[in-house]
C-alpha cells in the first residue's frame, strides 16, 4: 500500500507531462476535437459543436447537383447532398421523424467531436437502414467534416476539411484539405458514377 501511495503523485505528474503532447499528435491524426480526452486543449481550437458535417449519398440518377449550403458550392457530380449538421441546428431531411432527427443529431455530434471510425460506421448503418426500408441497396457515402478557420490578415473565413468515403461497405479516408476550395479538392477524390 505504501508503495502505491508513493507512486500515485509521480504517476499523476507523469501523465500531466506526457499525455498532452501525445494528445496533440492524436488529435491531428484522428481529427478529434482538441477539447476531448483530457489533453487540456479546451479553447485551443473550435470545439466539435462548431464543426459541420456534410453527408453526400451517391445517386447516379441525379441530374442536378444539390446546393451544399446557402452558397454557390455544389455537391460533387453524381452525389446528392443530404444533410448539414452544424452547431445546434440540423437541416434535416423533411421526411425525418423527430426520433430519426434526434438519432441523426446524436450521430453527427459524435462525428463532429470525436470522428471515431465507429461513428462513421454507425452513420452508414443508419443510412442503410433507411434505404432498406425503401428497398434500396447500401449506397456509396461520403462524409466531410469542416472546421471553421479565419484568415485575420485578409479578413476571410475558410475551412479545414477532412473526409471519409464508404464504398462496397468499407470506409476509407479521402484525406484533408484547407481553404475555400477544400470541398472541391476532396470531392474530386470521390468515385464518379459509371
Amino acid at each position, binding site marked *: 500500500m*505504501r508503495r*502505491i*501511495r*508513493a507512486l*500515485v*503523485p*509521480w504517476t*499523476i*505528474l507523469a*501523465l*500531466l*507531462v506526457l499525455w*498532452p*503532447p501525445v494528445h*496533440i499528435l492524436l*488529435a491531428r491524426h484522428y481529427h478529434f476535437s*482538441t*477539447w*476531448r*480526452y*483530457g*489533453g*487540456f*486543449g*479546451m*479553447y*485551443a*481550437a*473550435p470545439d466539435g459543436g*462548431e464543426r*459541420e458535417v*456534410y453527408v453526400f449519398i451517391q445517386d447516379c440518377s441525379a441530374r442536378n447537383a444539390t446546393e*451544399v*449550403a446557402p*452558397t*454557390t*458550392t455544389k455537391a460533387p457530380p453524381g452525389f446528392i447532398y443530404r444533410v448539414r449538421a*452544424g*452547431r445546434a441546428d440540423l437541416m434535416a431531411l423533411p421526411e425525418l421523424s423527430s426520433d430519426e432527427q434526434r438519432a441523426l443529431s446524436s450521430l453527427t455530434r459524435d462525428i463532429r*467531436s*470525436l470522428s471515431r471510425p465507429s461513428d462513421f460506421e454507425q452513420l452508414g448503418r443508419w443510412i442503410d437502414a433507411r434505404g432498406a426500408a425503401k428497398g434500396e441497396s447500401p449506397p456509396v457515402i461520403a462524409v*466531410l467534416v*469542416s*472546421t*471553421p*478557420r*479565419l*484568415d*485575420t*490578415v485578409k*479578413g*476571410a*473565413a*475558410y*475551412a479545414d*476539411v477532412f473526409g471519409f468515403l464508404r464504398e462496397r461497405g468499407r470506409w476509407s479516408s479521402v484525406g484533408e484539405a484547407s*481553404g*475555400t476550395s*477544400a*470541398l472541391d479538392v476532396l470531392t474530386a477524390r470521390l468515385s464518379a458514377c459509371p
Partner: protein
Amino acid sequence: MNPLSLREVTNGLGREFCAPVAPDVAAWFHRFFLGKTLLLECLGVMAARNAEGLALARVLIMSTALLLAETRHFERLGIFVFFLLRTTDVVLSFPYTINHAFFECALLLALLLSDRESEVPQPARVAQVGILLVFFQAGVQKLAHGHYVNGEFLALRVLFDEGDMGRRLRWMLEGTAQLGGLAPLPPLPLPRPSFIAGAEVSLPAWTWSVLRGLSNGVWIAEMGLPVLALHKASRAWAAIGLLFLESFILVLSGETSFGFTTVACLLSFFPELARWTYPAALLALTGVVVLLGR
C-alpha cells in the same frame, strides 16, 4: 549554466517538491477543494427549476462527506466519497468529459492516498506542480493547433459567437473603442457564414491587432509564468500572474469550476496567508459564479 549547477537546481527542486507543505495550507487546500465541489453542486441544484431526487441526494451525500472529511478518524472516508462521485461523473460523461474533471479526480486521489509520515509529495505539492503543468500544457496546445498566433480563435468568438464568451469579448472591444476614440465595431455577431465555401469578414483594423495581441499574450503567459514559478525568487510573482490570468479566463469564458480548482492550487503558493486567502477566495468566487449566472 554549467552542468553542475543545473544538477544542483534540479536536485533542489526535487528536495523542495518532497518537503512537507505547511499544515495550514494542506488543511485549507483540502477544505476549499471539497467545499467548492459541494458549493457548485448546491448552486447547480438551486439553478435547476426541477431538481431531481438524485441531484438532491448527491448534495446530501457531499455535505455529509465534507463533514466527515473534517474529522480526524473519517477524513479518508469523506474524501473517498468525493472521489467516487467525481469519478462517476467522469465515467458517465466520457468521452465528453470536461478536461479539468480528470485533474480534479487526480487531486482527490492524491488527497485520498496522502501519507503525511513519509517523504512522498503531499497533495498540496501535487496541486502546485500539477497546476503549473496544466497551464503550461494548455499554452502548448494553443500554440500547436495554430489558432492563436494569428488571433483567429478569439476573432471567431467576436464575429460569430452568440454565447457568453463572444458577448464579453465584444463588450471589452466596444469599451476599448469608446475609451480610445477608435473606430466602432460593426453590428455583431454576424450570422455564421458557410466556412466551407469561404466568406469575407470585416472588423476595424485596430480590432485585429488587439485580438492578435491578446491571443499571443494568453499562450505566452500560460507557458511563461509556470516556467518562472520554477525559480524560488520569481515563484510568488508567477503565482500572482497566474491568478490574474485565471481571473481573466474565468470572467471571459465563465469556466467557474476550473476557476475554483485553479485558485485552490495557486493559493497554496502563499502558505502564510492561507487562513485568509482561501475563505476570501471562496467568497469572491461564489460572488462571481452568482454574477455570471453559472
